[in-house]
């Protein structure tokens, strides 16, 4: 009985415990559920937690949107709308039958008749060139833009930009410290790669073989060989064939290992080079570069906040559609509002651009410290120049000047023209008067003209720029005056030919083939027309002397001309011809500077070969 009571008691206890447990579970589930519901509600209802930086960017985004909201397109509309209406009316006056079907036909690639094609081109012109560009120019061109918007708006844009600027300035020390850490990390990475490269060079063949087992091509080839071995086992001469195939397999495995090793080393080497370049580049970043990077980063955050605001306001890109022009022509009253909206869209684009331009870091010091090396270098060069200049002045008799055969030939070339009774053609290339090659060419022209006058020959100077023509005229006149025969100068022989490169080349080729000159000089800046001109001169039988600093054209001149001045010889030519030792400093200085630069090259190569991290010489010579 007692046992029965005990069992009943235990059963009741177990039941109550089970019931208690179930209630707890339900209670727990209820508690958790309510908590989750509470969390999800709080997520749905409360704002996401923003950092101070994000708050600032959001504030800037809201400032920009305020400017957009407060801007009225009325004034632009009043000015631009009559203009675009005029463009459209003029177009429809000229092509009264134009309709949108032509655009559709063109879009589908169907053939258009002459009228349709012409009208479509004119339509595109109206749409793109006239209306679109007119509005773009008016709204976004800075002069118009700033002239148009009120000062208060301009100040508001500056105020928004200042927030970003001031925040960036306040982070100057952090940016510098972070960048320093970053550069150090890059150096560590570089060293790691260097060590990896060294260890890869000593990697065992077994290790490479492990890598090869993951290579699909390798496995396929090995499978093929194994298959052939298995097939060969069934033949009579199996032993020899199997042996041969095993040998073949071993040769292939060795070849694979060799190539794989080479590939791994090469990849690592390239990775190391890229890491080094990156490190060197980052090392040279100034605080202003860091400001610009920070500006880009913060701008991205700002635009992240403006994007939903743009969607709220339905801001789209400016687009004058064909339908818009048609409706404008049909005097649809809704067009006015649509155009105002388009102008507002355009304004938004301009506003974003203006904001970007307003974030300028004007903390840049008056002296650009990162160019100190150039300042010192040019000073040293000038000191060297005057030193050599004075030295040349003192020892002008004993001075050795290397021979330039092309310039020595000028006397003979001019003399040849006199003997043959044929003219000389001198052209100065396609360079403008601001280019140093053209200036050098003008200096040579004076000396050549002097010789031409002395030898009583005739000179033609076709030019491709009117100002160069004026200078050439002056140079030839001065040359004739220097020789004492100003009356022999014919003004009409110096003329403007064409500004276009190939039209100019064709013109000179024509002159060369018609006049059949005894001598042709080509000194100045040339591009693809160099060979066209010099080959025409060759075909005409002229003795030709050319000179240019355009490296790509020198081979053409060397091929087609009798004498060619290479690079800096062009700059020294005038002085060389005039035999003025003082001005011949040019040649001496160039040679001297070339020795110095050559020495620096060798030194740099040695230093970097010893240790690739010793970039001090590179940094010293680097500028931007």
């Amino acid at each position: 009985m007692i046992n029965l009571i005990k069992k009943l008691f235990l059963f009741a206890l177990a039941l109550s415990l089970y019931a208690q447990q179930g209630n707890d579970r339900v209670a727990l589930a209820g508690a958790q559920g309510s908590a989750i519901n509470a969390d999800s509600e709080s997520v749905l209802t409360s704002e996401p937690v923003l950092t101070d930086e994000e708050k600032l960017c959001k504030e800037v985004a809201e400032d920009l949107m305020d400017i957009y909201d407060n801007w009225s397109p009325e004034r632009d509309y009043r000015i631009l709308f009559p203009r675009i209406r005029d463009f459209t009316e003029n177009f429809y006056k000229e092509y009264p039958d134009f309709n949108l079907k032509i655009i559709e036909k063109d879009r589908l690639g169907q053939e258009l008749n002459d009228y349709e094609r012409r009208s479509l081109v004119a339509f595109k012109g109206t749409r793109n060139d006239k209306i679109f560009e007119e509005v773009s120019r008016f709204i976004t061109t800075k002069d118009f833009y700033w002239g148009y918007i009120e000062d208060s708006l301009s100040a508001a844009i500056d105020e928004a930009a200042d927030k970003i600027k001031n925040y960036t300035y306040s982070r100057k020390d952090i940016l510098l410290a972070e960048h320093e850490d970053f550069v150090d990390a890059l150096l560590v990475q570089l060293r790691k790669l260097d060590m990896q490269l060294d260890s890869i060079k000593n990697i065992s063949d077994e290790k490479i073989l492990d890598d090869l087992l993951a290579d699909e091509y390798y496995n396929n080839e090995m499978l093929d060989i194994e298959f052939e071995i298995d097939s060969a086992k069934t033949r009579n001469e199996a032993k020899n064939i199997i042996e041969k195939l095993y040998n073949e397999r071993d040769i292939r495995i060795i070849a694979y290992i060799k190539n794989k090793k080479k590939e791994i080393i090469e990849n690592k080497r390239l990775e190391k080079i890229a890491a080094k370049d990156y490190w060197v580049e980052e090392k040279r970043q100034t605080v202003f570069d860091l400001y610009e990077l920070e500006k880009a980063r913060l701008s991205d955050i700002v635009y992240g906040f403006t994007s939903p605001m743009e969607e709220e306001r339905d801001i789209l890109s400016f687009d004058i559609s064909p339908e818009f022009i048609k409706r404008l022509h049909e005097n649809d009253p809704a067009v006015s509002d649509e155009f105002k909206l388009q102008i507002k869209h355009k304004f938004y684009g301009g506003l974003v651009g203006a904001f970007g331009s307003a974030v300028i870091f004007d903390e840049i010091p008056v002296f650009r410290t990162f160019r100190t090396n150039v300042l010192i270098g040019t000073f040293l060069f000038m000191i060297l120049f005057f030193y050599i200049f004075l030295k040349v002045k003192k020892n002008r008799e004993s001075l050795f000047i290397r021979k330039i055969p092309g310039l020595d030939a000028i006397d003979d070339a001019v003399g040849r023209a006199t003997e043959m009774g044929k003219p000389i053609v001198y052209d100065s290339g396609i360079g403008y008067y601001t280019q140093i090659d053209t200036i050098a060419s003008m200096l040579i022209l004076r000396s050549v003209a002097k010789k031409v006058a002395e030898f009583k020959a005739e000179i033609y100077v076709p030019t491709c720029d009117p100002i160069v023509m004026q200078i050439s005229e002056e140079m030839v006149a001065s040359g004739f005056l220097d020789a004492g025969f100003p009356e022999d100068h014919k003004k009409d022989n110096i003329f403007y030919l064409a500004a276009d490169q190939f039209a100019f080349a064709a013109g000179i080729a024509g002159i060369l083939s018609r006049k059949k000159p005894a001598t042709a000089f080509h000194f100045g800046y040339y591009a693809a027309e160099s060979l066209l001109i010099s080959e025409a001169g060759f075909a005409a039988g002229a003795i030709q002397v050319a000179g240019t600093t355009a490296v790509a054209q020198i081979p053409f001149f060397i091929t087609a001309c009798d004498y060619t001045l290479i690079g800096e010889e062009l700059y020294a030519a005038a002085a060389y011809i005039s035999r003025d030792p003082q001005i011949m400093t040019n040649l001496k200085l160039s040679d001297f500077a070339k020795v110095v630069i050559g020495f620096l090259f060798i030194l740099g190569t040695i230093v970097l070969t010893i240790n690739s991290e010793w970039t001090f010489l590179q940094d010293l010579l680097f500028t931007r």
Partner: protein
Amino acid sequence: MKKEIPILIGFFATIGWYLEFFFAGTFFENWKMFFTTGFRSVAIVSLIVGIVSVLRVNYSKIKYNNDRWFSVYQMCIIALMIIFASLRGVSPGTPFDAMFTFGFIPLDATVFSLLAFYVASAAYRSFKIKSIESAFLLVAAILIMLSKMPLGEAMWSKIPTIGEWIMDAPTSAGKRAILFGAFLGGLTMMIRIAFGLEKSHLSD
């Protein structure tokens, strides 16, 4: 004074441009802007000078029957383009644009395409072994030509690599040497002109 004043202007202009490279600020920016605007103004005036020159030269040719019909033809084309541009503008679809697109551009392209033939004839002349240097040139040229076509690779797989090496190593070295010389020569010439040591560009 005819020479001294231009030399002084040149000197101050050079110093201003030189300092602008090192110093920031509105003064130097304006200084630079002053000269760039000056260049632009001169370029506009030069257009008139160019037209006058073309008219003068062609007038004398027509008058003295020196290639008369070429000049007449040239003057007619110029006049026609000016008239069309004045009457109907220069935008796409206008007669001026048609003359430019269907007349000028094909002629321009024709002259440019002549280059291919000239390259062949010039190469034929220069690829003759007259000295050791020209032998080197010939060998290098043949290797480069072969490296640029599939035949070269078919002949020997290393030919493209050799061609690439010739272009990257010796050719680049030569080019850079010429460029260094040219820059140094240009710099020296700049100093000569800026300090008035070179006067031959100034007329008497």
